[in-house]
């Protein structure tokens, strides 16, 4: 399984996780959280980041007990063949649904902002096709690509930073106006945007080095995401007055729309283009996890490459037949709850089982 030829470095893991985390949630995050937590939305986001970190820690504890197994490999060991297969199936389905949700959100945002007449299935087809092209390759190549396009995040930060020319810090005062309960509720809405670190469960054995380094990598990745999100949310909060914020579904994008330079105007179009790249990598991350799951469903410990075309086709079919905006909303709500089950619930239960029954990886059973 842990063929050294296809292992990635912990440094690459940082980028893999970050790029999977930052994605479609970035634009809508502010307004979603602001609806609940008002001016304290940025605290909610920070809180969500910390919570995500706790989840990462649980995942790490679990994966550490099976250093050369992926989630799919030790599920049958822990839960028995049938339940294990079932959970594996559920995980795969979850990843496929998340991937579909990303595409749906992506295409509807693009539809609203730029390509309002282009049929959605074409946009969906292009983005799926591009994903397929990459996830047919080894994890190492995927990691290389993710590292390469990381500069998009930096560019996003730089563009956002220009909004500081016209801000009013009074909008977020007084800190704590919403109350702890509302802030926590806001954190719930932000949790969704942080999803992506479950990649750790799947790639844990594929990373070189000791488990401490892997935890460090995941921490760094989550930290970057949390900082970026907080920065983005904070900036939107101080640019728009609260009543205006309620009207804007994508404040971040709206904010950059008014920026003007002597060479560039309408920065939102450039911003969207960069964001498209970021979203695509996030989609690729989920597609990778899903195809790994799909491949393992049919043949244990097999490569994700063979399953990639089927995964992409499945996701494409789902998104093409599932375009009702109301349904997408419901879909998003379901996923935000399913989040906790898959990112925290199941790994935690598995961890408990593994401790209680003292199940760890048996040396030599790998090959």
């Amino acid at each position, binding site marked *: 399984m842990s063929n050294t030829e296809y292992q990635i470095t912990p*440094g*690459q893991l940082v980028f893999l996780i970050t790029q999977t985390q930052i994605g479609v949630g970035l634009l809508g995050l502010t307004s979603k959280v602001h609806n609940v937590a008002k001016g304290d939305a940025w605290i909610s986001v920070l809180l969500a980041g910390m919570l995500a970190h706790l989840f990462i820690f649980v995942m790490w504890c679990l994966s550490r007990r099976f250093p050369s197994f992926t989630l799919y490999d030790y599920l049958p060991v822990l839960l028995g063949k049938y339940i294990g297969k079932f959970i594996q199936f559920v995980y795969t389905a979850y990843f496929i649904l998340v991937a579909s949700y990303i595409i749906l959100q992506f295409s509807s945002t*693009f539809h609203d902002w*730029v*390509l309002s007449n*282009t049929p959605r299935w074409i*946009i969906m087809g*292009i*983005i799926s096709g*591009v994903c397929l*092209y*990459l996830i047919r*390759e080894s994890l*190492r*190549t995927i*990691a*290389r*690509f993710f*590292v*390469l*396009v990381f500069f998009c995040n930096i560019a996003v930060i730089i563009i956002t930073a220009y909004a500081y020319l016209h801000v009013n810090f009074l909008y977020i005062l007084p800190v704590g106006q919403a109350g702890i309960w509302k802030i926590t509720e806001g954190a719930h809405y932000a949790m969704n945007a942080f999803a992506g670190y479950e990649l750790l469960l799947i790639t844990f054995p594929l990373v070189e080095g000791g488990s401490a380094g892997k935890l460090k990598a995941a921490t760094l990745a989550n930290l970057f995401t949390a900082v970026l999100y907080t920065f983005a949310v904070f900036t939107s909060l101080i640019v728009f007055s609260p009543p205006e914020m309620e009207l804007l579904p994508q404040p971040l994008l709206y904010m950059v729309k008014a920026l*003007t*330079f*002597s*060479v*560039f*105007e*309408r920065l939102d*179009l*450039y911003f*969207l*283009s960069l964001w*498209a*790249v970021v979203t*695509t990598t996030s989609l690729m991350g989920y597609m990778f996890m899903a195809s790994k799951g799909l491949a393992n469903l049919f043949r244990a410990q097999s490569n994700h490459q063979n399953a990639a075309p089927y995964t992409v086709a499945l996701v494409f079919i789902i998104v093409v037949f599932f375009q009702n905006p109301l349904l997408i909303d419901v879909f998003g709500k379901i996923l935000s709850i399913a989040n906790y089950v898959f990112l925290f619930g199941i790994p935690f239960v598995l961890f408990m089982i593994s401790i209680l029954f003292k199940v760890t990886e048996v040396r030599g059973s790998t090959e």
Partner: protein
Amino acid sequence: MGLLTNMFTNNRRKSRPMLKKSVLTPQPVFPSVQENIQFMQEALFHTDDLLRQTVSIPGHTSEFLFMYTMCDQSKIREEILKPILDNRDGDLEGILISMRANRYDDLEKVIDLLVKGYAVLFIEGMEECFVIEVKSSHVRSVTEPNNEKTVEGSHEGFVESIIINLQLVRKHIENRNLVVKRYKLGNETKSEAVIVYLQNLANPKLINEVDCRIQNIDADNISSAEIIEEYIEDKSFSPFPQLLHTERPDRVIGNLLEGRVVLLAEGSSTALIMPVTFFAFYQSPDDYSFRSLQGSFLRFIRLFSFVISIGLPAYYIAVVSFHYEVIPQDLLLPIKRSVEHIPYPPILEALFLELTIELLREAGIRLPGPVGQTIGIVGGLVIGDAVVKAGMVSNAMIIVVALTAIASFVVPSHEMSASVRMLRFPVMVAASLFGFFGIVYSVIIILIHLCILESFGTPYFAPVAPLRLKDWKDTIIRFPQWMMKQRSNDPAPQKLDLQRSSGEERQGNE
């Protein structure tokens, strides 16, 4: 499927299946001169450039054969006739030694040599024949290659002879570790090719891989290095070249010293360097003859040219047909004015102009020197001005396309320049369909392809993907020589360290 294939491939002639490599049975030398000559003439199908000449070695009837098209007359006089005349009374052995003749007893082998320009001496009654090298050589002088000119530095260039080329390389690396491996390639052509590497630097795995790929070539016609390239490269259908061509010995030497392998072939003045990365195509020996700041600046310009030549026309098309909102207020009026009465959509305009420029370029190469230049000027000025006046193409588009064309010729490597010129068409089409969205996705596809691509096991887009900042010192920017402590990692050299701390103290004291 089968029917379709038959319909569209017009395959009326059936090729005879290729025989397995036939091993020729050795043919011993006949005792009689006549028989030998008879045999040789039969074997070469009485080709008319095969000449026979009798020489009188005292006490022996002897005759020699040579192909006059391949031989140097004065050499025949020097090497064959003169020793015989000088040693009128000497014994046969003495004559043969002064002729520097080699003995052969297999006529089949001798035929191959004969074709190469050796003379064969048959002596009545001997079971051996003697082969004397009288090859005529017409070697171009070592001049600076036309397509890789530099401002400063060495002005040597490779020629078509492998021996001279190797000499040019060895002259600069006087090192026992420099190893040359010879291959005979092509079942019909039997042309000679060598790989050169430094034993103590080049990765053994890499050497093995190169060796293996060359050994696996089983083709009739191999006549030049560029043909070998297609047999050994990783992905033939990738738009990016995966082996670096060069005609400059200093470039070859630099790469050898980084632990790469170089392939030279008889008859072509091009050396192939492997493995290479994308950025190697954007380096020029000039970078090293400039000081580090200037060198880095030039490299930046070249990489910038890559971005311009792929992205600029697409960006312009996307802007004028989708997102003209991004044009600043003050620029909008001139651009709007220039596109107002153009009958075609921008993509057609751009394709028309780009193709015109490609035509001009191609025509400029084919035409003789002075005319070529004229065509460039006539084409550039007259067509450019006329199409704008006729209202077929807008002024802005002319600027964009001209800039792009200039940018695409900045690349020091000819093959990379060609692939960049080709790559921008799909990006342009994507931009005309989806605006920025199309550009972003076509660029993503190109980037993914660069990430996937490998050249002899080396990631093609190193050191950017996989990221290795240490190697940026000599790829994207150029640090001063004394700061390059390590060789670049992409050919996986055996020794990474390049120097310890030369020059550092002096810098530190300042």
